[in-house]
Structure formats: structure tokens, C-alpha cells
């Protein structure tokens, strides 16, 4: 009996149902907590690109006080009808660069809520094994990188996964994405241990993770291009985009 085909089919079906139920219960039960983690992580990532947060900082409160978020159209103008929460970075990433709706997180001065100190933009791309994403914050000149915060889905721990470390992310601080009015972006170079402090568009590489670095370079260029019109509009006429 135990070797008959019918027994095997019934056994497999029963096992599948049982496993499915167990997994569904686990996934649904833990979902709210997971989503809360993701939302908090996003706020933390936006803030860490501009501020040094201590461990006990109240992320939610700080975010609401300092961050003004809005959506930018491909032509560089603000889409008043859309909210940042309605935009899925993943869905927008699949569209051609000139059709994306793009969120911008404007970090305002602590003393003057109308004065933008930093612009934080999300970036999304593909590393070596899986997707990578993150946030880049630009100073008010819209060319100098103030900080970056990267995350990944499956880069190799100890190699490509180092993009999430402070050590790697710090290398981007102070680099420029524009050369005059030309968009140049920032390149992570091959090899590690070189000094690129004199070069505004190059950062030191990650030994053993050249392909993840390439993914980062492509991601940055791709998104800076998408935001280029917005940057230029802002640079040319700071008043042209009227917020709120």
C-alpha cells in the first residue's frame, strides 16, 4: 500500500496542504510587524542620508518634522495630484527612465520649515544577484552628495553586501554629480585602497565585489538622469516649483 501511486499522490497532496496552511499562517501573522519594520527602515534611511541618528532617536517624529515629500514628473515639474505613498519605486523602475514618476524627500531646516536643506531621492537597480536600492541625499546646490544609504536583497555577505556599511557609504560624501551643467554622476572604481579624494566623480571600490559596484554605478546614473530635469529646473529657477 505504502508504495502505491495512489498513496503517494494522496500523501503529497496532504503534505502540500499542511505546509501551505502553516506558511500562510506564519506569513499573515507576522506581516504587520514586517511592514512596520520596512516603513520605519525607509524613514530611517531617508534621515540617515542627512542626519546622524543616535540609537534612541524617535524616527517617526523626526521624519514628520523635517521631511516634506512630493512627486516629480519626468519633465521636472511637481505632480500635485500624487502622494509619495502612492508611488511604488519598483513599478516605476520597470518603466523607461523618461516616464517615471519620482518621489523627492525635501529635508527642511530645523529653524525654517520653508528652507530646503537637502533633497533625498530614492534609487533602485540591479546588483550582482538581486535588486539593490537606497537613497541619495544632495545638498541644496543639487550637485554635491551629502550622503547615501544603500540596501540590497541578496548581495554576498562580506563582499557586495558591504554596500550597506557606513564605511562604503561614507566614500560618497562630498562627491559631485554635475560637472558644470553636464550630468556626470559618480563612479565606484575597480579595486580597493586607492585615494580618490581629489576626484569629484570617483569613489574607491570594493575588493571582490566589482559587479555589485557596477550595479551601483548604473543605478545612480539611471536615477540621476531621471531626475535631471527636476534638478535643472530647481537650479535655474528656484521659485519655479512652488511647493504646497
Amino acid at each position, binding site marked *: 500500500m*505504502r*508504495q502505491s501511486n495512489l*498513496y*503517494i499522490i494522496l*500523501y*503529497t497532496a496532504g*503534505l*502540500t496542504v499542511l*505546509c501551505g496552511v*502553516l*506558511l500562510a499562517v*506564519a*506569513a499573515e501573522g*507576522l506581516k504587520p*510587524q*514586517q511592514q512596520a*519594520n520596512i516603513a520605519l*527602515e525607509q524613514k530611517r534611511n531617508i534621515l540617515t542620508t542627512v542626519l546622524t541618528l543616535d540609537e534612541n532617536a524617535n524616527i517617526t517624529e523626526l521624519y514628520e518634522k523635517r521631511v516634506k515629500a512630493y512627486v516629480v514628473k519626468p519633465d521636472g515639474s511637481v505632480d500635485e495630484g500624487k502622494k509619495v505613498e502612492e508611488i511604488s519605486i519598483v513599478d516605476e523602475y520597470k518603466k523607461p527612465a523618461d516616464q517615471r514618476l519620482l518621489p523627492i524627500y525635501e529635508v527642511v531646516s530645523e529653524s525654517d520649515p520653508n528652507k530646503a536643506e537637502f533633497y533625498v531621492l530614492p534609487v533602485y537597480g540591479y546588483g550582482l*544577484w538581486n535588486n539593490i536600492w537606497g537613497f541619495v541625499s544632495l545638498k541644496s546646490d543639487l550637485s554635491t552628495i551629502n550622503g547615501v544609504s544603500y*540596501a540590497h*536583497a*541578496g548581495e*554576498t*555577505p*562580506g*563582499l557586495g*553586501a558591504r554596500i*550597506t556599511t557606513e564605511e562604503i557609504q561614507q566614500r560618497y560624501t562630498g562627491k559631485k554629480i554635475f560637472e558644470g551643467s553636464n550630468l556626470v554622476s559618480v563612479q565606484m572604481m575597480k579595486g580597493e585602497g586607492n585615494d580618490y579624494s581629489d576626484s569629484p566623480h570617483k569613489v574607491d571600490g570594493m*575588493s*571582490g565585489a566589482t559587479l555589485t559596484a557596477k550595479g551601483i554605478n548604473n543605478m545612480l546614473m539611471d536615477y540621476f538622469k531621471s531626475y535631471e530635469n527636476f534638478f535643472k529646473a530647481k537650479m535655474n529657477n528656484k521659485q519655479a516649483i512652488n511647493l504646497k
Partner: protein
Amino acid sequence: MSTQVEEKKAAPAVKEKSEGLFSQKNRKLLVDPLNSNNPITVQVLGICSALAVTIQIQTALVMALGLTFVTAFSNLFISLIRDSIPARIRIIVQLAIVSVWVIILDQFLRAYMYDVAKGLSVYVGLIITNCIVMGRLEAYAMANKPWPSFLDGIGNGLGYGAILLTVAFFRELFGSGSLLGYKVFAAAGLPFQGNGLMLLPAGACIIVGLIIWAQRAYNKHYEE
């Protein structure tokens, strides 16, 4: 080193009779994998993740606990249903049970240890294919009662964890100059640059090799 503990005798007999929960035989199931039957250094299983996740003590610890959890409960479940499993699909049944526990573990880490889960994402998923888990299911749980199988899973998880933590200790100390994130060299006022080799899997490979050497010299174990 935490691996060099008690007992040096041969592996326990497979058959169990009714006996106390922590009889001598059952205790051996827990203790033997720490040294004389260690899954990494003696059985040479689970090397892949031992090389990959040992860059920090914290990740090694979570991985070790995760694997212990998965091995123990997979062993328990497979042992419970071992008489009903059709022989022709037993590997698939084992994989299904292991996958369920691994996914539950992964979901749990994402909910309650989000930072660690991000760093370990690939490797937690890969516990499904970890040779230790499948190896123990095939070699032990399919032929033994639930309680000894559960203990065998815990024992092997701990043996794996002991090696992982030892490797992680040296890699984090000499690679990053820290222990559990605490910068020990900096705190002691010593200048320390960090050894890049220790941050690469090759560094882990060397340490595992040294551990195997030391353990075999200590146990006077020689390949025939």
C-alpha cells in the same frame, strides 16, 4: 576553544530502548557533535555557510541558532512521520518539511530581527540545502524515535554553531578589529588596520582548516 570538550568515544548506537529523557545515550547525542562527531570538522558538512556568514559574531550566532532550530524541528517531524513516508518520495518530503521551518524562521527574523535578517537573507534561505539538515534527516531521523532525533538535531546544530562562532571570533577580531561590534583594538588604544584576508571567505577557509588540524591532532584522529 569551545569545540574541544569532553568525550572522545565512538558515535552512539542507533537503536533506542525506553529510557530517561537525558539518559547517557541521549546526552551523547548532544555532546558528540561538539567534538568527536562535529558536523563541520568531522562530517565536513555545512562548510559553505561556515565560510560565508562568519564575518561577524552576531550573524554567525543567529545563523547557528537558526540552523539548530531548523535541524531540531525537522528531525522531530520527520521522525514522527517516518513510518508513513513513501520511500520513493522521502527526499521531497524531507525538503518540504525543512523548507517550511526555514521559511517560518526567515519570516520570524524579518519581523523581529530585521537588521540581522537583511544581512543573512540569502543564507537563511539556503539552510534548506544545508547538508547538515538533510544529512541528519537521512542518517538519523528516518531511523530513530522523535525525542532522540530532536536531541540529535540540537546537538548537531550546536556543533555547527561552535565552529561558526570560533571562526567568526577570529575573523571579526582580526578582520574588523572588533568583537560583537565593539572595537576592542581601538578601546585598548592600539592602532589596528584590519586584515583584509579575514574579511574574505578565503580567510574563513584557512581558519576552518586550522581548527580541523588542531582538533584531529588533539583527538589523535587520522584518515586511513
